[in-house]
């Protein structure tokens, strides 16, 4: 994620984090030396491998999902998730179909149904993405859609995608998210959203625009260290001249007049490219890139970074890259191998939730439901995610949101996360979403003591008991001892309940992915 020009600041941060953490707090409050003595995430994450699987591969465990994976076993559960069309997701399917009818429109229908340059569909695809993350049962599929949306990023909203971004989401990302990468890459190269976002629509033999030709190598396929040079990048651009968009209809068109003719060569791909119609050459080139061993490594690395560790093990990356090539760019076998690997099992606590993942996990674990009618509350979540700095599909640069903890460490972001937990727990905002009574987070028969109360709430929210130190912190907030009896009239089950829920969600137990 670094730009290659500058030394990474990560090492500096790492080195200073302990000092900074201790010093800042010690200077103001005192007694927090323990924050500085950094532990590992494993201490906060339950070592239950089922929960580990759910934290990593879904938008957050909920009790029913936990029960389901325990019953089926991880392997069977994962195999069902990897065949999403077989999963009954009628609730979410209906929600999207009824509340976001534009999601099924093609580009022509979109142009017929909304005003030119309207923000309506760009907003709706963002909100529908949030809704699916929360309420879809096809959780692994949704996580992979997010992964590919960032890998083949077309920033939403941005110029020129008002009529096509939702179509890109459906026909490029969702269609191929668990299929073959080769097909997805070809689909993206044929889609107006990508061709406009990276300016290939304007690229001609006489006046080539290198934006797409470069990113196709650097981001979409072989990666920045893939071994191409500037001449490869120019040739890449020339091959793709002609892939364009009809400005009248907004649809893909191939412009033979714009296409560069003549022999081309990029990273082992060669073609005489003699014809004005170079569409097939372009497709061959894109497919070649998808199957390149460097692309295999690049995608394997990114999958490992998403699912295992910020700094993936090269051995694991190589294994997965081989699987990718052996299966002709098929994603499922790669994902299956990765998620059932020992390396995956051993990585408990090594990833942290990014703000959007934290938001969705919070909504899920609190049992939030969509608006009774309309999309007002769901639409508000668009602004919540935006305020958290992690609105889905919205990363402005072509490289997609980073998935390293170091990129998400601002104090403003942390405070926004904490305040969002309370706002959701207390049902302050978005108030049009439906939230079950908070009291239902606790057993019908109240725990007998305040200590047991904290245990029960933690078990429900973060799926494990807190350590004694951390339990003390929550009890301290209530001004109680663990053994103090609990009754229905106590603050802890009354007006303080949303505060306690928020506090537990503020803890690292909920921050671990």
């Amino acid at each position, binding site marked *: 994620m670094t730009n290659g020009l500058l030394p990474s600041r990560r090492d500096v941060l790492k080195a200073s984090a302990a000092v900074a953490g201790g010093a800042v707090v010690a200077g103001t409050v005192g007694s927090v030396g323990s924050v500085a003595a950094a532990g590992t995430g494993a201490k906060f994450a339950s070592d239950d491998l089922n929960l580990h699987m759910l934290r990593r591969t879904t938008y957050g465990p909920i009790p029913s999902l936990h029960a389901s994976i325990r019953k089926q076993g991880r392997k069977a559960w994962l195999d069902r998730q990897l065949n999403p069309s077989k999963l009954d997701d009628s609730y979410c399917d209906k929600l999207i179909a009824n509340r976001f009818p534009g999601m099924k429109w093609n580009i022509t229908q979109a142009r017929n149904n909304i005003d030119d340059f309207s923000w309506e569909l760009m907003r709706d695809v963002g909100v529908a993405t949030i809704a699916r993350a929360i309420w879809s049962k096809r959780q692994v599929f949704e996580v992979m859609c997010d992964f590919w949306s960032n890998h083949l990023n077309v920033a939403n909203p941005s110029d020129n995608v008002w009529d096509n971004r939702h179509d890109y989401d459906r026909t490029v990302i969702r269609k191929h998210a668990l299929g073959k990468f080769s097909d997805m890459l070809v689909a993206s190269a044929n889609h107006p959203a990508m061709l406009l976002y990276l300016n290939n629509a304007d690229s001609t033999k006489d006046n080539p625009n290198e934006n797409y030709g470069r990113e196709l190598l650097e981001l979409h396929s072989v990666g920045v260290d893939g071994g191409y040079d500037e001449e490869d990048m120019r040739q890449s651009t020339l091959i793709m001249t002609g892939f364009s968009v009809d400005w009248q209809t907004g649809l893909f068109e191939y412009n033979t007049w714009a296409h560069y003719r003549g022999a081309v060569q990029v990273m082992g791909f060669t073609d005489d490219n003699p014809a004005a119609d170079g569409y097939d050459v372009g497709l061959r080139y894109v497919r070649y890139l998808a199957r390149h061993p460097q692309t295999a490594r690049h995608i394997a690395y990114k999958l490992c970074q998403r699912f295992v560790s910020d700094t993936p093990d090269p051995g694991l990356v190589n294994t997965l890259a081989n699987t990718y090539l052996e299966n002709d760019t098929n994603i499922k076998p790669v994902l299956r191998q990765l998620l059932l690997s020992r390396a995956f099992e051993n990585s408990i606590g090594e990833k942290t939730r990014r703000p959007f993942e934290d938001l969705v996990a919070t909504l899920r674990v609190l049992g939030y439901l969509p608006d009774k009618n309309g999309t007002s509350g769901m639409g508000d979540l668009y602004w919540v995610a935006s305020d958290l700095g992690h609105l889905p599909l919205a990363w402005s640069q072509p490289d997609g949101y980073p998935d390293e903890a170091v990129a998400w460490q*601002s104090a403003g972001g942390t405070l926004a996360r904490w305040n969002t937990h309370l706002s959701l727990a207390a049902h302050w905002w978005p108030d049009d979403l439906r939230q079950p009574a908070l009291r239902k987070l606790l057993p019908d028969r109240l725990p007998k003591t305040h200590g047991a109360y904290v245990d029960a709430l933690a078990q429900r929210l973060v799926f494990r008991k807190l350590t004694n130190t951390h339990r003390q912190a929550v009890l301290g907030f209530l001004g109680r001892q663990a053994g103090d009896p609990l009754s229905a009239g106590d603050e802890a089950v009354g007006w303080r309940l949303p505060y306690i829920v928020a506090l537990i969600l503020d803890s690292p137990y909920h921050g671990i992915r």
Partner: protein
Amino acid sequence: MTPPRDSAAVDLGAVNRKDCGCPQDQQTAARRGFSRRSFFKGALGAGALTGLASAELSTRMAFAATPYVGDVVVVLSLRGGFDGLNTVVPTSEPRYEQVRPNIHIPQGALIPLDANFGMHPAMQPLVPFWNDASLGFVQAVGMSNPTRSHFEAMEEMERAAPGTSVRTGWLDRTLGLRDSEGAFQAVQMGSSMASSAFLGNSPELAMWSVDSFDLSGAWDNAERQRWRQALEGLHANAPDPIGAPAATTLGALSTAGDLQDAGYTPAGGANYPNTGLGRAMRDVARIIKADIGLQVAAVDFGDWDMHVDLGSVDDGWLYDKLSELARSLAAFATDLGTGMDDVTVITMTEFGRSLTENGSGGVDHGHGQAVLLLGGGVNGGVVHGDWPGLANDALVDGDLAGTTDYRQLLAEVLEKRCGASVSTIFPNAPAERIGVVTPRV
């Protein structure tokens, strides 16, 4: 089209919160976003603030190998495309009035700047700073790869690395070369979303305001302490990626809390307008004076996309915007006084506007733009830049050309006022400097 930032400006604090089940008084407090200032006014005075500030300061010293010495740079983004031609008006170009028959600023109404330019009368509050040479302008500033799209132009400008595949923003790269000096090192004020100039791994703190930077569940200092202790306890032994930002956040909350308790009265009779920009500039001055490590502040001031009804010389859209801009900046400079010797304010906008007015009394997207610089180190009282003129062959697609690359200005400020080496911040940028600031002494 309005950039998403503007529409993102939903004030969460203003949202009417539903019954949260708390006792009436706490609910009211929560609803009002209760200010701890009103609670503790006078109780904790400047003493507490000084104590905290020095604690933060010593913290910074503790882990900054070489503490930053240089100006606080305030980047003011005039989003939407700021009309430099009606602001720093070319008085020696007869064509200006011809192509803007209904919206030009008449010569007689202009504030004279030099032989070739006059300033829009709404800029009157800034005249003293022009006269004392802390205010300057650059005309005909542009980008090496101009585009008329808001999104693309803004992103490109804030990335500031055309022709490369650098993904980060220029402020992020600037900060990446410095030691980390605490949560308030880089602040986006007046918004919860940081400008894309901050894109990258260096942390920045985006806040609506100093007073709203608070735990929403705490309505007084006792509650705040209750939360802080619990959050500290819950983060004991936390892994770095969660524990370090949590500790920084608690420290920043503590600092902000003391600023809130201390309250703020601008110095020198400075009178900030009670607008988004006025409040943001007031808070920037406030944290500069609190000496809590601010190095870079970014403030967005949008709504310059004047395709329709730009207005007249003493009324309307442009007049109102310029008036708010001038009053806010004048108050800021007055408030800081000699402190402006260590501050450089620079404006940026994605493009200038079309030379010719359109059929709706507005101006469309153009090229060359005007930049405003304010600060003790500014070579003020001068309209800088190589004015290309408005003759047909000097125009680019019918609009004012850009003759100075905006990165030359940013680079000069960073080099001369902040001690930065800019080769990695602005790869491949033109090396020429036009003398908009003087070196720091």
